């Protein structure tokens, strides 16, 4: 453990490029979240809240009734983003494995960096706990809309925890692999 800074050029290059590419993916992920979800607990809760169901039929009435309201076709052109439980199931089964692989790769880099064992343990726990918190928050907000803001906050915290873990690993990797490498080697 902790030998990554002394690793061959291609090993250090692999770790660095992985981290930079992951950062790029994070930036676009953030854009996606801004477009279709939110960075605020209330927004997350609203985005994944269960669909209300108002049936168009009423057992009590014997005659169907209709009313018409004028509408401009252009006003219908606003995109609609529909989230259903099935979609949340699908996205969980797609995103959680990707999150797990990301956490595992970050953990491998953490194992190669020089740091105290306690910090290493903390970073690894953070990398794996973050996605759990993120999706626990999304599902909580969907299943228990009454506590939506609380669960939305958990989802946002999970997302930022992953970002924090990534940022720490990135900075430590860049510093140890490229900036202070000689100092370490001479020490």
């Amino acid at each position: 453990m902790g030998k990554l800074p002394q690793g061959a050029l291609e090993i250090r290059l692999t770790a660095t490029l992985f981290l930079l590419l992951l950062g790029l993916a994070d930036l676009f992920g953030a854009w996606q979240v801004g477009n279709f979800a939110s960075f605020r607990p209330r927004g997350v809760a609203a985005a994944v809240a269960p669909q209300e169901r108002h049936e168009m039929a009423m057992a009590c009435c014997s005659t169907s009734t209709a009313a018409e309201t004028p509408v401009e076709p252009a006003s219908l052109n606003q995109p609609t983003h529909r989230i259903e439980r099935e979609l949340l199931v699908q996205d969980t089964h797609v995103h959680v494995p990707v999150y797990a692989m990301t956490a595992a790769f970050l953990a491998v880099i953490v194992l190669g960096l020089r740091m105290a064992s306690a910090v290493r343990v903390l970073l690894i726990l953070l990398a794996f706990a973050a996605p759990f918190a993120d999706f626990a928050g999304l599902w909580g907000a969907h299943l228990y809309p009454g506590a939506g803001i609380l669960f939305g906050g958990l989802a946002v915290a999970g997302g930022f925890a992953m970002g924090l873990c990534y940022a720490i690993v990135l900075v430590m990797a860049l510093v140890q692999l490229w900036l202070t490498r000689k100092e370490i080697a001479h020490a």
Partner: protein
Amino acid sequence: MRRTLLAVAAVLCAASALGHVTPNVELLRRGDFVKQSLPGAAHFFERQVMLSGPDGAAILSATGWTPTEEEVKVYVGRDEKGGLVGSVVFLWMPSEHGPVGIGVAFDRQGMILRAAVTDVGTEPLAWVRPLLSSGGMDVFTGLPVDASPDPFRMAPSVRGAMSRYYAKVIVEGVKRARALERLVMRAGNP
């Protein structure tokens, strides 16, 4: 240099991608679909309907489905004198990989003028697009009021199992739209 690195890291940290739900891909804008499908209409209206118990039971019996206000929207086009030109039903169909948005336009007699997939998720798009690019939606145009759409006649050259599954989803959506259109247009009329 370290300051720069810290600044970059802070930005990336703030921009972390928290879990998000995959968005729909909008294939066709609803307003454009309404206008293009009912070119003779001068005025457009949203038709809000409350179905009676018997009508609700009829649609449940015909399609196995209970429509809700959240998943269905009905618009009608009228000419300058207020005469009915046609109607358009938009609805969401649930599927294995997220909801599929479907629009069906009808003439004043209830014959299908045009049907389209308006929205679909990024993943099922790969299976739905071959159906659309093979002219699969044309099978609904001019379908007589009493004829039942057949998923096997929709883009038969497209053979993938998932595409065939989505053909069934789309056909089921058109069936629902047609069953609902009859009741919605009859509602409120003596």
